[in-house]
């Protein structure tokens, strides 16, 4: 037994988190920053934080994740980190020469109360920021929210620092993809392109964290939202923001700053959420949905209807980040599966909890939901009454192995498999991939558990 101390008996816990289903703000901010072309994320704190955040992202993507740190020592922790940040800015431009430095704070610099805009202004005044280069920032105290909050804050910072109404309205639509994989970002852009829509996406980590092997290491790879595109987001027709927790703040800020109206939708995971995405795009841009997308939609639906018998009634336990979990729950319910245990690590609020309850209200089983929970609790629920399928990040494999439950990796971090960087789970194509994964897991188990007598060739 791996998790040998996990008991069936559930005791009230209010102070101790065991096996968290979330992590801290800065790693999300770092991920978002990597979605700006030519950007070096910078962690304003002691070096342990950036070492951990780079490591986490590197293990998840199996790609270089480069970032810098203010490297606080005890002295900086007492007197504040201004000198360290100024020195860092100087060194970074001299040695690595990025277009943008995106500073995020840490618990340490937040507790001290360093005023980052003031330090950036000082750097500017001291001539430490070369012409045409930028230093932006987001406050990301880890004792508030989670990595999703950090992602959201840095995405909003892109609006705060860059977006402007600097020309006539363009027939362009802004896409804020939420905390999704580089593959998902490509897929969201492709769908817009397929519809003949010109779009600006931010952040955009495609071709940053799934770059090719060329024999030449480039610290600043080809991908990422370009500064001039970020600047012109203020001229777009509208914004489609995906995943409330990750994207709403930026969409709102852009509306307030540049009067760009936004549509707030779920992450386009599964058939219906993708329908909503495509329909929003269609309406906002005033275009028709091309045949090619209708075919993709039809293919996904075809597989779902053909294989419905294997989805029906399967009890699923699901753990992850709020935006993903909500979209996925709705998708599972829509194909007749029963997501009965749902845990998010981030505390996403009462309204969010209501949305999950609403989505699962017709399931004819007891549904347990914990928004702001941990994996120990999820495991304890399973010990009391098991499920047919587990969905979550790599850490869930410990539960899956102990309880012998089929398991699909989904979310952050995935440390032991590849695929998430290259194959999307959003859009109709992504829906197909999800459905394939679910069927593989469920049917492999059926094959494994069949007796010699009832083992089947055709399923």
């Amino acid at each position, binding site marked *: 037994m791996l*998790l*040998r*101390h996990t008991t069936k008996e559930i*005791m009230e*816990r209010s*102070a*101790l*988190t*065991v*096996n*968290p289903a*979330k*992590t*801290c*703000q*800065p790693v999300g901010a770092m991920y978002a920053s990597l979605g700006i072309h030519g950007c070096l994320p910078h962690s304003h*704190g*002691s*070096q*342990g*934080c950036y*070492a*951990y*955040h*780079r*490591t*986490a992202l*590197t293990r998840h993507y*199996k*790609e*270089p994740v*480069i*970032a*810098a*740190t203010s*490297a606080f*020592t*005890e002295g900086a922790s007492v007197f504040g980190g201004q000198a360290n*940040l100024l*020195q*860092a800015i*100087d*060194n*970074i431009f*001299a*040695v*690595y020469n990025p277009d943008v430095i995106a500073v995020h704070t840490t*618990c340490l610099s937040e*507790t001290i109360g360093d005023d980052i805009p003031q330090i950036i202004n000082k750097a500017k005044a001291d001539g430490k920021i070369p012409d045409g280069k930028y230093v932006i920032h987001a406050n990301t105290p*880890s*004792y508030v929210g989670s990595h999703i909050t950090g992602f959201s804050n840095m995405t909003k910072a892109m609006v705060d620092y860059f977006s402007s109404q600097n020309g006539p309205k363009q027939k362009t639509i802004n896409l804020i993809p939420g905390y999704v994989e580089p593959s998902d970002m490509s897929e969201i852009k492709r769908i817009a392109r397929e519809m003949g829509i010109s779009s600006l996406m931010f952040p955009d980590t495609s071709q940053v964290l799934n*770059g090719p*092997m060329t*024999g*030449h*290491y480039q*610290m600043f790879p080809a991908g990422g939202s370009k500064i001039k595109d970020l600047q012109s987001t203020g001229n777009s027709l509208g914004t489609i923001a995906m995943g409330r927790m990750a994207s709403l703040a930026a969409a709102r800020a852009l509306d307030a700053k540049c009067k760009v109206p936004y549509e707030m939708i779920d992450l386009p995971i599964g058939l219906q959420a993708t329908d909503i995405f495509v329909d929003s795009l269609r309406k906002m841009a005033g275009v028709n949905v091309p045949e090619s997308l209708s075919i993709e939609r039809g293919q996904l639906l075809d597989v779902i209807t053909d294989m419905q018998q294997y989805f029906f009634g399967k009890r699923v336990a699901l753990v992850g980040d709020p935006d993903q979990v909500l979209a996925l729950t709705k998708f599972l319910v829509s194909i007749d599966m029963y997501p009965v245990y749902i845990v998010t690590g981030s505390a996403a609020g009462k309204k969010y909890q209501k949305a999950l309850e609403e989505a699962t209200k017709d399931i004819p089983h007891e549904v347990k939901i914990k928004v702001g929970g941990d994996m*120990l609790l999820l495991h304890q629920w399973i010990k009391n009454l098991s499920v047919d399928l587990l969905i979550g990040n790599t*850490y869930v494999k*410990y539960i899956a192995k102990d309880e012998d439950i089929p398991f699909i990796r989904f979310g952050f971090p995935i440390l032991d498999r590849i695929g998430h960087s290259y194959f999307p789970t959003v859009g109709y194509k992504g829906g197909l991939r999800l459905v394939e994964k679910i069927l593989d897991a469920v049917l492999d188990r059926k094959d494994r558990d069949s007796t010699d007598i009832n083992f089947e060739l055709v399923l």
Partner: protein
Amino acid sequence: MADRNQQQEVVMSLDEQNPETVKADLLRRYPIKIARKRSKQIVVNKVGACDDVPQISSNVRTIPGLIGQRGCCYAGCKGVVLGPTRDIINITHGPIGCGFYSWLTRRNQTDPDSSEDKHNFIPYCFSTDMQDEEIIFGGERKLRKAIQEAYDNFKPKAIAVFATCPVGLIGDDIHSVCREMKEKLGINVFGFSCEGYKGVSQSAGHHIANNQIFKHVVGLDDTVREGEYKVNLLGEYNIGGDAFEIDRIFKKCGISIVSTYSGNSSIDDFSNSHTADLNLIMCHRSINYVAEMMDKKYGIPWIKINFIGAEATAKSLRKIAGYFNDQKLIDRVEQVIAEELPEVKKAYLEIRPRTEGKKVMLFVGGSRAHHYQELFNELGMKILSAGYEFAHRDDYEGRKVIPSIKVDADSRNIEELEVTPDPGKYSPRKSPEEMNALENQGIKFSDYEGMMPAMKDGTLIIDDISQFETDAMIEIFKPDIFCAGIKEKYSVQKHGIPLKQLHSYDYGGPYAGFKGAINFYKEIDRMVNSKVWGYIKAPWEKNPELTATYAWG
């Protein structure tokens, strides 16, 4: 084995380059102040008559913005030293991140079924997940409650608390909370003030971990266990099962391990470890403090050993046998070496023609950049450059330089425990005469010769290498293999050069001992001779011209 004489030939050229010119190239891009500082951390090696080597600046502050690979004090304390102990509930007191990142990420294998109670908390992450309320009003209440909840849920025999950056700033007194809960729960509860900003790297955390374990655990259990030739194995963290392989060899030789610090360890072993008769140090950097303190308090001498490399393993075993100076053990050790070594030799002789002369660089940790050179030498590979992330001068130049190391402000903040002989338990394991005699036989006590004396003249020694220097070294020398950690792995590989992780072993191992050496030879053979690096250029890039048949016209 690699021919030492051939290795020692004095050349001040490095792979046909002048190392001084290379050094200048590495520094050229830097602002003047940075160049000055880095130039003391980049040294061209030269080994003098009494193994004296040039001075290298190390264990100094990380330069903001330069991008290196170091971690923090918390990582060294909670992650490295205490992480591998299975039966303590380690609670991270702080916001969620620090605990999350150090959860199961260090591959410390453990065998819980080998202890009576079978406790194993390694697969769990415990955190107080501090919120802004606690930052404003203090986190002691939540910590107290978290300890209680850990106890109620899991009934462990010990709980340890680790402070992260904000904890020190808001002034939570974790030690008084621990004392209080220890009294209340009747189990061992102790804390580590290992806030990430302390010191200049994870090294400070190693020291703090050593201190607290020594203060709160070592010496609690005086039971004298059965077994002959009792040793502790210090600074062996059982990555990929290294400690299991060493265990296997020790068992064969009849050497008993009282406690390993801290691979596959139990807190019960630590409490009892003062009953051993010799301390063996693998990773000098992370654990020498405990060895020094045990020597002073209990009279247990320590020697440096190294089980990375077949020859080094044999040599270390002979040292141990020499110390106990008992013919039965000496014979047994010789027999084991005679049994095991032929297979190892066969392995590297078979592989060596494919690895001979290939170029290696190693930048990792606080001891592995040295230890792993043994294995590469056995494969006939050429080490061009090496360095540590967080080592001190003694790890580079040897312990003989310790008296000349200036203690700076960052190190002064790390407590040095005052240790005196224990009135009841101090008992020198050897008399001064015996120690002298052993020294004369070549067994050096409390000594580590460092990495640089073992390296060729002209090699480049680079402390706390930066990303910029890493990329430059690769461009200049095009090594065949680069050894470092996860953060460097994929940038190096984008250059088209395989990177061997020497922290996590790329999820392989063990590499220690005799069987481990064979694993490593095979691994390196696989890496430097793989076809997969050869496909970078597509056919149309190799031959861009169109053939006449298909061209327009």
